[in-house]
């Protein structure tokens, strides 16, 4: 099922000024529910811009963004005639229905950012409270939850982020870069969003930190079976952790689909400055030179496994 659909979406920064810049150009795509979708593209290809459209932070210059089939930027006027036919409003008097629909549209607008949780690029800059606990509690508090509920969510979020609970009473400004990043992500997870959007969650971290963060995101997705969208410019990471991929280049959509579909069409990636993972290139070359290897090897672990098997079986025959 499609959780999010973009329909001919374009976005222009500073329209009508000499600084006008088209950051998204007629992008149409759909994002499947309950899996991890990777958005990949070079710096400046419009990834961050696209992410800000998903939770209504900015509205597209043209085109529509649907969440569960509802156009998130629709106004009361857009939906009124349509919704009036719905069974729950059809029985009401017209003025009462009008009021109810108005309230519903406003509510959807307000709760959108809680339903689609966005972790921005370099989110550690958003920390501001005295303690980590209070900072993670900021989102749930804005949702108007009770203290009890907030507490439960903060502890749940800190567990997902792989940090120790003792950190909750520290000041967020005393943490290391990687810890800050996790606290910021926990602050969004604590809102229990249906869709979690992470803009370059591993940017600027060391390889070990990168791997840990990606592992935790996978773990989170499996545990909550929510929809996760993450942005990266590394094909290697995407191939390893994502089920689906979206490739952007120069503000346009280049490819979308499962990792297999995208990587099997290497020619699409040409000219985007992106490439299939090195390990895939290697195994494909080995296959060309006669080894029995599949086309869809995206991780080093898998390649090692396959080569080991191959080695063992060869040794058996000799």
């Amino acid at each position, binding site marked *: 099922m499609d959780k999010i659909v973009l329909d001919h979406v374009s976005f222009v920064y*500073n329209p009508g*000024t*000499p*600084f006008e810049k088209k950051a998204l150009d007629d992008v149409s795509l759909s994002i499947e529910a309950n899996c991890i979708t990777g958005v990949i593209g070079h710096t400046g290809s419009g990834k961050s811009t696209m992410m*800000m459209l998903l*939770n209504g*932070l900015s509205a597209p210059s043209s085109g529509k963004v649907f969440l569960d089939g509802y156009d998130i930027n629709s106004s009361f006027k857009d939906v009124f005639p349509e919704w009036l036919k719905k069974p729950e409003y059809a029985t009401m008097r017209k003025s009462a229905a009008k009021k109810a629909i108005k309230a519903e549209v406003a509510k959807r607008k307000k709760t959108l*950012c*809680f339903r689609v*949780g*966005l*972790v*921005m690029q370099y*989110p550690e*800059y*958003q*920390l*501001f409270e005295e303690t980590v606990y209070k900072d993670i509690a*900021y*989102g749930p508090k*804005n*949702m108007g939850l009770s203290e009890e509920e907030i507490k439960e969510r903060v502890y749940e979020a800190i567990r997902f982020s792989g940090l120790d609970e003792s950190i909750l009473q520290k000041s967020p*400004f005393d943490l290391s870069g990687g810890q800050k990043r996790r606290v910021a992500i926990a*602050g*969004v997870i604590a*809102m229990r969003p249906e869709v979690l959007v992470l803009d370059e969650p591993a940017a600027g971290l060391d390889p070990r930190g990168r791997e840990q963060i990606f592992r935790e995101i996978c773990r989170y997705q499996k545990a909550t079976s929510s929809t996760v969208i993450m942005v990266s410019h590394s094909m290697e990471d995407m191939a390893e952790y994502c089920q689906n991929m979206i490739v952007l280049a120069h503000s346009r959509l280049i490819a979308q689909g499962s990792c297999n579909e995208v990587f099997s069409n290497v020619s699409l990636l040409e000219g985007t400055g992106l490439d299939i993972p090195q390990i895939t290139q290697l195994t494909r070359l080995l296959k060309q030179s006669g080894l029995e290897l599949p086309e869809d090897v995206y991780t080093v672990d898998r390649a090692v496994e396959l080569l080991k098997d191959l080695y063992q079986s060869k040794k058996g025959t000799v």
Partner: protein
Amino acid sequence: MKSIAFGQYYPADSPVHKIDPRAKVILTILYIVCTFLCKNVLAFAALLLSAILLTSLSKIPLRMILRSLRPLIVILTFTSLINVFMTKGEHLLTPNWQIPFWGGHVWHIKIYEEGLWNALFMILRIVVLLIGTSVLLSYTTTPIALTDALERLMKPLKLIRVPVHDIAMMTTIALRFIPTLMEETQRIMNAQKARGADFTSGGLIRRAKSLLPVLIPLLVSAFNRAYELAAAMECRCYHGGKEKTKMKILHLRFGDVLAVLLIVAFGVGIVFLNRFGFYYTMK
């Protein structure tokens, strides 16, 4: 660096953009003097003409200039009303405008022809002043070039121990970081909005409070940036202006000198026009 819209600088390829920033500072001062020299209809007509000419030379869209005039409307209305009602002259236009008050008192409204002229001249003067300074400086000169020019022009003040270089350096850095900080503010606001922050509803106190999640990270990052910049400058052995050479050396060209001469000639022309007794001459 990303070229985001900052301040009012409008990039274009025009003769006004090309004038040396030092010359532009002098031109602006002279132009302001010219607006104050104007005394009669002819002089103001010439002044208006010069403003139009300047604008078209600079290739700045008219609507941008008109937009920058919008905030002036209140001041302009206010000053012109004061001028209309307060100026006393010889030609009374409203001999029998009276407003009766209770108790037999009557208030005479006296509007003199001189008051109308004064109001018109005042409006023209302020509008041209703004157009002149914005076209000559803010729209066509980058802030960095401007501080550079000011440093050069203020050089003689070094003799009386004014730290000209440090002032210029501080201004340059401040100007350089305004767009960065604006971008950062936007980013942090977005990040907090994504966590459900609401900056627009509630009373004054609640709204001020809702800005804390933006202000604190902004201050933290501003301080961090300042420390980093200071460290980076020290690493490159920056120690004030002594013996520092410039990468971009400003050269006065013939055109710059010509522009200054032209504006001086314009000023002389205005003084000349002032001598004709045409309709009305301001005191």
